[in-house]
């Protein structure tokens, strides 16, 4: 479980919140859009037995600051997280990213290969995943649906339910986690700013870099993820040399809710040092 109070560190003029637990080689857990560090709560204990686990809230998410000036795109988050790890004094670390976090994992790995020992992409965005161009983001249906979700918990719950295979696990307690940032106007604006900041080019630009990376990659996909096409994960597996693809059944987009133990098992196995 995550500790009750997050720690905070000032990065580039704004505070980032994070939870840190365990000892060993560092592992950075990075969430995606609509979630924040809470999504790792069922995994952190299992990982912390062998690793120094840091679950960070991206800028504009969770308990981190929510300024509307900086970009919340994948590239901006990636550079911000590099500064974050330096501020924490982390050496080379493993990067585990979910959804947008998976995209950030790809960008940091190729842009800062000396920092990342292992990269894990869980139901991650890749290539031209985002169906819109920034300038008209707010008027596209997918974003308007997300915008509606910021105002209507019922709409938000539909999004979450579609993203979880075991629907009975979408409890009021889980929805309280998801809904927390939407309870303030600031949180709602930050969420929409996140959506508006997304730009395919942040990932399409690094396609060639991915093909040349030497960092071990683990690609995990929930086979019942309706938000990201299977092709994303399959193409990643094809493009990234030496990558390993694990497809887990009975797991939706929010695979951390459906198969936490399986994830811990896969991650610990992947991150175990080679004899």
């Amino acid at each position, binding site marked *: 479980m995550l500790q009750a109070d997050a720690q905070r560190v000032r990065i580039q003029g704004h505070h980032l919140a994070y939870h840190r637990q365990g000892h060993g080689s560092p592992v950075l857990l990075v969430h995606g859009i609509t979630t924040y560090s809470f999504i790792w709560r069922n995994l952190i204990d299992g990982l912390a037995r062998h690793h120094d686990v840091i679950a960070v809230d991206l800028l504009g998410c969770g308990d981190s600051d*929510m*300024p*509307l000036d900086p970009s919340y795109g994948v590239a901006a988050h990636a550079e911000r997280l590099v500064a974050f790890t330096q501020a924490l004094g982390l050496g080379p670390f493993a990067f585990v990213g979910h959804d947008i976090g998976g995209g950030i994992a790809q960008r940091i790995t190729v842009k800062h290969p000396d920092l990342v020992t292992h990269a894990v992409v869980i139901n991650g965005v890749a290539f031209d995943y985002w169906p819109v161009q920034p*300038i*008209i983001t*707010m*008027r596209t*249906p997918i*974003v*308007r649906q997300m*915008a*509606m979700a*910021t*105002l*209507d918990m019922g*709409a938000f719950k539909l999004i979450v339910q579609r993203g979880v295979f075991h629907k009975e696990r979408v409890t009021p307690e889980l929805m309280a986690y998801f809904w927390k940032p939407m309870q303030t*106007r*600031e949180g*709602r*604006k930050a969420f*929409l*700013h996140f959506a508006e900041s997304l730009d395919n080019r942040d990932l399409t630009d690094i396609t060639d870099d991915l093909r040349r990376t030497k960092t071990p990659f683990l690609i995990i996909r929930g086979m019942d993820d309706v938000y990201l096409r299977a092709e994303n994960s399959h193409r990643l597996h094809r493009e990234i040399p030496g990558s390993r693809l694990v497809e887990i059944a009975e797991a939706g987009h929010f695979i951390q809710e459906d198969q936490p133990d399986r994830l811990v098992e896969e991650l610990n196995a992947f991150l175990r040092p080679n004899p």
Partner: protein
Amino acid sequence: MTPDAENLEDLRDRLRVLEKENELLAERAEDISMLGLVAEQTGTSSDPRELLGAVLERVCILKAIPYGACLEPNGSFLRVTSAYHVRRSEEASTDDFQLRDPALWPPRKTVALDPEECGRLFKRIAIEGQGPAPIAVALVPLRTSEQPGACLLFADDGRTSEELASLLPLLERVADLTQARLDNLSLIARLQRLNMNLDLDVAERTESLRRSEARYRILFDHVPDGVLLVDADAEGSFGRIEDANEAAAVMHGYSLEELQELHIEALTAPGPGSRLDSFEARIWRLRPGETVQEEVLHRRKDGSTFPVEAIGTLINLHGRQYVLGFSRDITERKEAEQAMLMTQRTESVGVLAGGIAHDFNNLLTAIMGQTSIAMDRMDEQTPGRENLWKALNAAEKAATLTQQMLAYSGRGKFTIQSVSINWLIQENLQFLAAAITKHVSFKLDLDERIPPVTGDPSQLQQVIMNLVINGAEAIGNAPGTITIRTRDVCVEQADPTQWPLSGQSLAPGAFVQVEVVDTGCGMSPEVRSRIFDPFFSTKAKGHGLGLSAVLGIIRGHGGGLAVDSVLGAGTTFRILLPAGFPDLSSKETVSPGTPRTARRTVLVIDDEDYMLEVVHDTLATRGHESLLAQSGEQGIEMLSLCRDRIDMVLLDLTMPGLGGVETFHRLRTVAPKVPVVLSSGFAEEEATAQMMGMDLAGFLQKPYLVSELIRVVESLPTSSRQE
């Protein structure tokens, strides 16, 4: 184009149309959802500012409009009362809007403006965080009752004015919902203000009323008399007790709560004498401001009755008629009046008895005197002498009766000395025991520490005797007990209700209390109220003077007398006698007769001719001369004429016209040294008290024996003849 290619193209066209329709449907669904969210917000928000902010946010987010604001006119400027910018943090904005012509504001209808039209309306538009001027601006009038000039403004830098115009119907619906809610909120605020003012007003009036009520209550509750407010609204009859004070509740033996549940009839004693009907009848005849006052009989909770002085008046209170009544418990006053009446009656009867006794004594003197003279003129064996002797005995017994009557009237023979009551009782115990039947036993409870009293021992003995005899008679033939108890008491303030038979004679001080308690038949209240009346007796053969004499003797001693009796259980007589050590001097009783002396000439002054006769006849048997005068004036004239012959004057104290005292004074001017012997039917003490300071040669109490008269006359020295 091949048929397959045509079909494919056709299918693509249909797909595009379907996608477009789908998009429109989705947009329509979103619009409905948005209106639903706005309606939800307008239905729940209670703060106008919060409402506007939430509505603007929903519209801007869901319709992807970057900026929305609510503007109110302020001269040529427009004040931003609420704003939402999708890319701006939640801080106070400095958005600035200035009109070219205030008369053009607010717009008459919902409108979308292009940059040129914006330029004609606005002199300045400055939206913080917005770069270039907006491409399109939508204006939606709000027209609230509080702010008819209020208007919603939406600025978009991604749509043209035509594109923004397609949203106007939706924005109008939003404005309608918002305006209705804002009007409701202002109405609610106005009602709350009115309510608050009303609450303040009510609170103030309630406080004022409370203070007034408290003041009324204090006055009401502190009135020492009972106060009753009786409902009199039903015509012709009294009703429920609407209100009462604590004094009324205590007076009647109820709690205040109980009293306020009663009908007035519950407090009035039933039967004749209550006079409630009279009181009620007079109440109804009252004119405004008048009151009615009556003595009525009230009833307590325990059923006992008590006299009340009631004052009532009709009042009108809050449109309803009431009787406002004041009631004063006059039980003590009535008891004091009764005691005074009894005292006055006793005194009246005493005066009567004294007057009768006095005249009777005169007659007895004549009877006894003439009978003695007749017996002296007879030999021992003369027939009829024995009869005369019996007549003389009867006359002496009659004299005893008159002494009792004089004692009752407080004018009996007194010999003042220090008397130990305990010694008096113990010394006369055998006489007391002889006076009662064998069935009756004595108990003595005598406190040895009691002081002596000042009084006449024989009178006090008579009191004890009379009370013991009375108690024995009450016990009758059944076994019983008479207890005599003595205590010393200190009376700080004489309570006439506790000692009702004392009259004015009971003064504060040290006393000896004597109780005579019998276990006899007791007395009813009616009998008890009359036992001290002279000649009242419950026995066939009683003369009814025993207890009268007791009363007279006790009052004559300045003491107190009270009686408690329970019918069938017994009676207790309580006596208070002043304790003290008087300056005593006992007066001599009549000494025995002296041998025949030289002839005397006696001037006899008495208004009764039979008294003159018997004195004349008595003196004549001894060879003395008597000059008879039937009035003071006649006596003075005789003394003036025969001063040289007269050896003494026998003067009656009580005479009509010139009384004994004044006659004495005038005799003294004629013959300053002539011996004067006073004669009276009253006790010597009282008689000589009237002659205080005068030199009397002696006193003869009527009825006196001839021997006493002869002794007094012959005891004077012959050389006392006047010069």
